């Protein structure tokens, strides 16, 4: 069997005495679209932060393509091919939209900390950035500061920056949060397109989006995984339904989806 893209082994995180992640074991196969769901406060974002290196695990291990990345810094993990977006929009507000995307690909394109090359002369970067702008539908916003974009546009840019580096593992933290129905539909299409042939991990509250996109779903409740399975089986899973009873709305949504 091939090595999964991401493997978590007994991953733990506590803040002071509060345990947020309590021993998570998970394998995310290469090329799958994997969604993590769970009620509010279950620790989904914390799990994301642990995998992407924002937080250091209190225990356990994280493997990316079989390599132990636990405790590594975010930029080291990113360089190994994992790129993530944020739940709260996290862009470079004073730089232009185009530059935001270009910043996302500088490292992976091999330019690193070069101070002897001029970015404007790097044709490949310009063309690739413009391609991504087209893809995320911001081509006509190319030269305005990212900080003045509308919310939905910023969410799209967030994804643009995340995929710009061409990472093969992409993690999206609530990519459609706060979007209208039509905006969400567009976002889903975008995510589907950009995750083609890549490993996608996402946290999402919108069950429609989850069941639409995901090949596999994990359910996180109070820092523990109670199920990991295909969408159909998750829908029928007793434990999952019980866990969601507290938050009736989402349970309903899940039933609807």
């Amino acid at each position: 069997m091939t090595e999964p893209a991401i493997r978590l082994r007994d991953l733990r995180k506590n803040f002071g005495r509060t345990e947020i992640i309590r021993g998570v074991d998970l394998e995310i196969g290469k090329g799958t679209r994997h969604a993590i769901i769970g009620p509010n406060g279950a620790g989904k974002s914390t799990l994301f932060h642990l995998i992407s290196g924002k937080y250091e695990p209190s225990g356990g291990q994280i493997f990316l393509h079989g390599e132990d990345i636990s405790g590594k810094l975010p930029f080291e993990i990113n360089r190994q091919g994992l790129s993530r977006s944020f739940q709260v929009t996290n862009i470079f507000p004073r730089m232009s939209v185009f530059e935001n995307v270009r910043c996302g690909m500088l490292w992976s394109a091999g330019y690193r900390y070069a101070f002897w090359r001029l970015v404007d002369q790097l044709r490949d970067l310009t063309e690739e950035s413009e391609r991504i702008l087209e893809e995320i539908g911001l081509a006509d916003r190319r030269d305005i500061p990212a900080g003045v974009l509308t919310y939905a546009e910023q969410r799209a840019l967030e994804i643009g920056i995340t995929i710009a580096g061409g990472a093969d593992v992409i993690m999206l933290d609530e990519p459609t949060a706060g979007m209208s129905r039509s905006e969400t539909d567009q976002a889903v299409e975008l995510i589907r397109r950009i995750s083609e042939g890549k490993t996608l991990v996402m946290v999402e509250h919108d069950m429609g989006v989850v069941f639409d996109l995901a090949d596999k779903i994990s359910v996180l409740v109070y820092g523990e995984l109670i199920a990991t399975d295909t969408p159909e089986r998750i829908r029928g899973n007793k434990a999952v339904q019980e866990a969601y009873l507290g938050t009736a709305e989402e349970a309903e949504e899940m039933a609807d989806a």
Partner: protein
Amino acid sequence: MSVIATTGAATTRRATFRRLAVWLVSAAVLLILPQIFTSGLAVTVMNQMGIAIVFALSYNMMLGQGGMLSFGHAVYFGLGGFFAMHMIDWVDQQLFVFPIYLTPFMGGLFGLFMALVIGSFSTRRAGTVFAMISLGIGELVAALSLILVVFFGGEEGVSGDRTTGPGIFGFNFLQDIEVYYLIAVWVLVAVLFMYLFSRTPAGRMANAVRDNPERAEFVGYSQRTVRLISFCAAGFFAGIAGGLFAINYEILTEQNLNATTSGGVLLMAYIGGIGYFIGPIVGAVIFTLLQTVLSGYTDLWVLYVGLVFLATVLYVPTGLTGIMMMHVPAWRLGRLRSLVVPYLTMVIPVAMLFCGLVGLLEMFHYRNGAPTGEVEMTVFYVTVDFTSPLPWAVFTALTLAGGYLTRRLAPAVAASFQAATSYDAKGSSA
């Protein structure tokens, strides 16, 4: 709003040409300036401006480009300068042969080296921590410079003779005007490279880290390394400025690396506008004028500089360059002319306010230190008797009337500005 760049080859070439033209024009201006301003003082002031420009731009590589607020940038300026000064001395003592006109580069390397040493720990964090470390280092180095006499020469500093090394094109830098051209060349080269740096991956990421250090980490960049690179580059160019200082003044003292110099460069960059590449250039020119020219007219010049600085921070955080840039949209839209009349109507009240305030300040100041029996002083080329109530009344009236009219007229002017720059106004184009 469909100003999408049509990235055709022709446009790119035109843009490149335009950019090149800017540099050529700058070079021409630098060449012609001494023909216009011929006096010895003008050359002295321009030399100082050149040094200040390089120094202020190097500072902005950190503050404006990299988001690092430093209270100790003079350290690299001074250390680079001291090293260059020693180089000049070694050449003078014939320890080795080295062209004097290249010593700023050596100063730069020394500045770079020191920035690397200090930056290796100080750039770990940005924000307040960085600012405080820079403050502490600045104080330490300034204090040590008086203790370590061998390198810093104590209070007298280190001096030398710039004229002994091998010359260039028959120049031996005997006269200030020769030094002017040397500085001009260095300024042009240094500014060009600082500009180009901002266009490199390292320079772009400095902006990214300034905007959002966390996100930069998630696109593969260590914020610390990005900051360190900017910091080193800033140290390098500050060292070059220090080297130019060494050649121009032939002396370096503790004052070149103390808190006053560090504070001065912050003032320059901020008044000029840290958000624009040319901001610090504007700031350096203006600050130098204030310091060398205004100080000849009034003892209160530092007070005025303080007022201008605080007004900038409060009302125009984008600096003087920001004010100019505010008018770019109006210019693009071809509506700049519509602003002429409203601006002219403002000139009189503002001038009144300004004259009134300055008059009051100057009279009060003069009265405090005046010799007994002398009651006359000159304000704005007018001789007044400061014991009589008349001038006080006149200046107070000017201040009040000017202030009132300014407030009254301001909304109208602001409205015309809005109209001139807003895209939604009639005839929206582009």
